[in-house]
C-alpha cells in the first residue's frame, strides 16, 4: 500500500511540475497592457454608473462633448470643437467635430447627442427604461436639447448653471451610440459602443474586460494594441500580482507597499492630487460644537501633518478649504492650514466653556475615498484627548454610516468623518454648506452650518458666466468658511499608481480617470 501511495504522489508531483514549466516558459506579448482594477466594474454604460472604478475603463472607450485637459480640471473641446454661451447663461450651442464614427460604424452627429440627453432626462423617451440614470441630475438644468443641423446642438437651460461644462466633462456626459442602445436595450452596459481610441472586445465576468485599439479613431491612434482590465479586489493580492509580473499597472496601491515599489527599479510610482477633501463634520445645531471657539480649538489640536505622514504615509496633503487645491483656478492660495498648536487649542477650550461632556464621533470602517478611517479616527481621538476633550468613537459599516450621517447629526453625534470627490468646485460647498442644504431639505449639510454670506456667494457663483468671476466668489467663500470652521479640515487625497518601468507616456489625471490612449511600451 505504501508503495502505491508513493507512486501516486510522485505522479501528481511530476504532473504539476510539467504544468509549471508550461506556464513559465511562455513570455507575455508586449502589445497588451494589463491593468489591475480595485473591483469588478458594475456596467460599462457611462450614464448608469457612478463608480470611479468603472470610469477608469469608460474614458478609454467613450468621449464626451468636452473633456478635462491633460493634467488639469479645466474644460477643453473633445467631440464638440467649440461652443458659445449666451449672455444670460441660458443657451449653450455646441459645434460638433465632423467625420466621427461610433465603433459600430454609425455617425456621431447632433441627433446622437440629443438621443443621449433625452434618454437620461426624458421619462417618456423610448429608451429611458434602460436606466436608472443616477447622476442625470448633473444635467437637470437642461430644459431642452435641439439638433439645429447635423453638427450643431443647442441646449436651453431653465436657469444659469455654471458647473454645466464640468458636468459634461464628467463620465455621465460621455456619448453612447444610439443604434447600440436600440439594439441591446438593457444589456447595453455589457455591450458598450462609443467613439473613443479603444473599442470593447469582451467582458468575462469577474475575470477581465478587454478593449482593443480602434483603427478608425479620429484622433491620434492608440499606443497599445489591447488593454485588459482585471479586477483584483484585495489590495495585498494586487501588490503580489504586480510584483510577480501579472499586472503592468495598478492604482490605489496600499500606502504600506509604496515604499517597496519606490526602491525597485523595475517599477515607477506615480502620484497626483485630485479633487478630494477629507474632513470631519461638526454638529452646529446642538452640543459643544455650537461654540465657535471649540470648533477652532479642534482645528488647532489635531496634528494633520503627522496624520498624513504617519497614518496615511504621504498619500494625502493637509487640507484647509472645502475646495480642493486641485481646482487650481478656484482654490484660494492665501489660505494656510490651521497649524498644530495644542497650547492655543487649550486656550480656546478654556474660552469655550466646554465642561468635559462626552463628544460622540462617528467613524466608518471604510468606504469610497475614506482612506484609512479607523486609524485616522483613533489618532484624532488621541490628539483631542490631549487638549482635554472626551471623545468616544462609534464605528459603522459604510452604507450604514452614510445612512446615519446623511440624515443629519442631530440626536446622533457631535462629529463625523466624511470625504468627497467632485468634478467641479461648486459641488461640495453647494451640497454641504448652504442653509438650504440641511438634511431635512434634501441636502448634505449634516452639521447644519448656516451663514447667509456663504449662501449668497455660492448662488452667485452658479449664475456667473466667466471663470474669473466664479473664482473670485469661491475665494471669498473659502475665507469665511475657514474662519467659521464648520468642519475639522484634515486632508486631500493624493492618488497613486504603480506601473512597470518601461511604460511610456503615462500620467495620472487630477480627475482620477485613467486615460490610456497614448501609453505604450
Amino acid at each position, binding site marked *: *500500500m505504501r508503495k502505491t*501511495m508513493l507512486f501516486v504522489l510522485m505522479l501528481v508531483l511530476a504532473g*504539476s511540475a510539467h*504544468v*509549471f514549466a*508550461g*506556464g*513559465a516558459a511562455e513570455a*507575455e*506579448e508586449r502589445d*497588451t497592457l*494589463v491593468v489591475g482594477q480595485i473591483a*469588478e466594474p*458594475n*456596467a460599462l*454604460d457611462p450614464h*448608469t454608473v*457612478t*463608480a470611479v472604478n468603472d470610469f477608469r475603463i469608460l474614458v478609454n472607450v467613450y468621449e464626451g462633448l468636452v473633456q478635462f485637459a491633460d493634467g488639469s480640471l479645466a474644460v477643453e473641446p473633445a467631440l464638440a470643437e467649440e461652443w458659445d454661451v449666451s449672455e444670460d447663461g441660458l443657451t449653450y450651442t455646441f459645434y460638433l467635430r465632423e467625420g466621427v464614427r461610433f465603433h459600430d460604424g454609425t455617425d456621431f452627429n447632433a441627433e446622437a447627442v440629443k438621443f443621449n440627453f433625452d434618454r437620461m432626462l426624458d421619462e417618456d423617451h423610448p429608451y429611458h427604461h434602460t*436606466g*436608472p440614470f*443616477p447622476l442625470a*441630475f448633473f444635467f437637470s438644468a437642461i430644459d431642452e436639447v435641439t439638433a439645429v443641423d447635423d453638427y450643431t446642438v443647442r441646449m436651453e437651460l431653465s436657469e444659469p448653471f455654471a458647473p454645466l461644462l464640468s458636468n459634461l466633462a464628467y463620465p455621465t456626459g460621455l456619448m453612447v451610440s444610439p443604434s447600440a442602445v436600440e439594439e441591446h436595450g*438593457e*444589456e447595453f*452596459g*455589457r455591450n458598450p459602443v462609443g467613439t473613443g481610441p479603444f473599442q470593447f472586445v469582451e467582458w*468575462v*465576468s*469577474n*475575470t*477581465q474586460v478587454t478593449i482593443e485599439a480602434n483603427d478608425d479613431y479620429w484622433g491620434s491612434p492608440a499606443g497599445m494594441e*489591447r488593454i*485588459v482590465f*482585471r*479586477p*483584483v*479586489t*484585495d489590495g*495585498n*493580492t494586487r501588490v*503580489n*500580482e504586480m*510584483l*510577480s509580473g*501579472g499586472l503592468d499597472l495598478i492604482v490605489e496601491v496600499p500606502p504600506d507597499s509604496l515604499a517597496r515599489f519606490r526602491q525597485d527599479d523595475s517599477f515607477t510610482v506615480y502620484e497626483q492630487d485630485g479633487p478630494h477633501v477629507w474632513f470631519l463634520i461638526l454638529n452646529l445645531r446642538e452640543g459643544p460644537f455650537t461654540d465657535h471657539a471649540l470648533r477652532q480649538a479642534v482645528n488647532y489640536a489635531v496634528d494633520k501633518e503627522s496624520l498624513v505622514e504617519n497614518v496615511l504615509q504621504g498619500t494625502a496633503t493637509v487640507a484647509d478649504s472645502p475646495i480642493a487645491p486641485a481646482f487650481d483656478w478656484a482654490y484660494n492660495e492665501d489660505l494656510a492650514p490651521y497649524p498644530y498648536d495644542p497650547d492655543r487649542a487649550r486656550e480656546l477650550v478654556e474660552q469655550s466653556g466646554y465642561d468635559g461632556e462626552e463628544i460622540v464621533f462617528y467613524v466608518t470602517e471604510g468606504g*469610497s475615498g475614506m482612506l484609512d478611517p479607523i486609524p485616522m479616527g483613533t489618532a484624532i481621538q488621541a490628539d483631542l484627548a490631549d487638549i482635554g476633550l472626551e471623545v468616544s468613537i462609534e464605528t459603522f459599516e*459604510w*452604507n*450604514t454610516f*452614510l*445612512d*446615519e450621517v*446623511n440624515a443629519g447629526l442631530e440626536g446622533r453625534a457631535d462629529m463625523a468623518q466624511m470625504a*468627497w*470627490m467632485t468634478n467641479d468646485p461648486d459641488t461640495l460647498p453647494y*451640497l454641504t454648506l448652504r442653509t438650504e442644504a440641511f438634511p431635512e431639505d*434634501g*441636502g*448634505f449639510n449634516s452639521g447644519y452650518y448656516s451663514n447667509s454670506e456663504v449662501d449668497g456667494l455660492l448662488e452667485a457663483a452658479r449664475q456667473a458666466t466667466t471663470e474669473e468671476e466664479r473664482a473670485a466668489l469661491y475665494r471669498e467663500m473659502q475665507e469665511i468658511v475657514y474662519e467659521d470652521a464648520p468642519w475639522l479640515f484634515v486632508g486631500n487625497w493624493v492618488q497613486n499608481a504603480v506601473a512597470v518601468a518601461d511604460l511610456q507616456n503615462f500620467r495620472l489625471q487630477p480627475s482620477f480617470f485613467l486615460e490610456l490612449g497614448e501609453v505604450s511600451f
Partner: protein
Amino acid sequence: MYRYIARRLVMMVPVLLGISIIVFFIMELIPGDAAQAILGSYATPENLARVRRELGLDQPLVHRYFIWLGNILQGDLGRSYILQRPVLDEVLDRLGPTMLLAGTSLMLAALFGMFAGVVAAIKQFRWQDGLLTTVVLIGISTPSFWLGLMLTLVFAVELGWFPVSGMSRVVGGGGIGDILHHLVLPSVSLAIVATGVIARLTRSTMLEVLRRDFIRSARAKGLNERSVILKHAYKNALVSIIPVLGIQTGFVIGGAVYIETVFQWPGIGRMLVGAIQQRDILLVQGGVVVIAALYVIINLIVDVLQSVVDPRITV
C-alpha cells in the same frame, strides 16, 4: 431508493423557500439599500426616491418578495440592481468556477485526509503518527485566507511557480493546463482545514475499528496486514467518514468566500461579498439559494453513497 431521492428533492422546496425568506428579510434589516449604494455621496432624498422608483424598491417589502417568488417559478431570478444584468446569467457564470474550486479542494481533502488518518492510525504513537497529528493540528488552526496569502508570497511572488490570482491567463488563456495551473494554490489553501478534520476523524475511527473483534479474527485466520487494513478496517471506518465529507462541503463552500477574494477566483463567494456590500438583494438571493441547493444535493449524494458502502443502511 428512487422514491427516497424524489422525496428528498421535494423536501428541498420548503428548505429553499425558508432560506429565501430569511435572506430577503435580513437584507432588508441592514441599513442602506441598492439605491443608496449606487448614489453614494449623491444620495439626496430626491435622488434616492427617483432611483428607488426606477429599481422598483419603492414597493412594499412583502409585495416585492412575492413578485420575486412569482418570477422564480418561471425560472427568472430577477435583475441585479448593481450589475444591471439578469441574476441567473451572473450566477451561472460564477457557479462553474466555484464548483471547480470547491470540488477540487474536497477531493484533495478527502484523499490526503484519509491517507494521513490511516497512516497515523496504523503507526499510532510512532514518529509518523506524531508528525502527522502535529501537521494536521496546525492545518486546522490556520486561517485559510492567511495561509493563502503566505502560499502566494512563497510560491507565486518569490518562486514564480504559480500565478498569484485569477483563473486563467489574460491573453490566450483558458486551456485545461492553464486553469489547473491557476487552481493549485487556491484549492490547496481551501483544502487544508477540511484535510485536517478528515484526517483526525479517520485516525480515531480507524483506531476504534482496529480494536474490534472481527479485525482480530481476520488477523487470526492469517489474512495479510494489507487486506486487514484496507478491506476490513478501512471499509468499516468509511461509514463514519462519509457523512463528515458532506458536512465539510458546507465549510469548504463557506471558506471559498475568503479564498475567492484572496485569489480573485471568479466564483459565487466573491460575488456574494460584493452583492451584500452593495445591498443587491436579488443577487444575494440568487447566490444563496443556489449554494443552499448545492449543499442539499451534495448531502443527498453523500447519504446515497453511504447506503452503497454500508448495506446495513437502507434509504
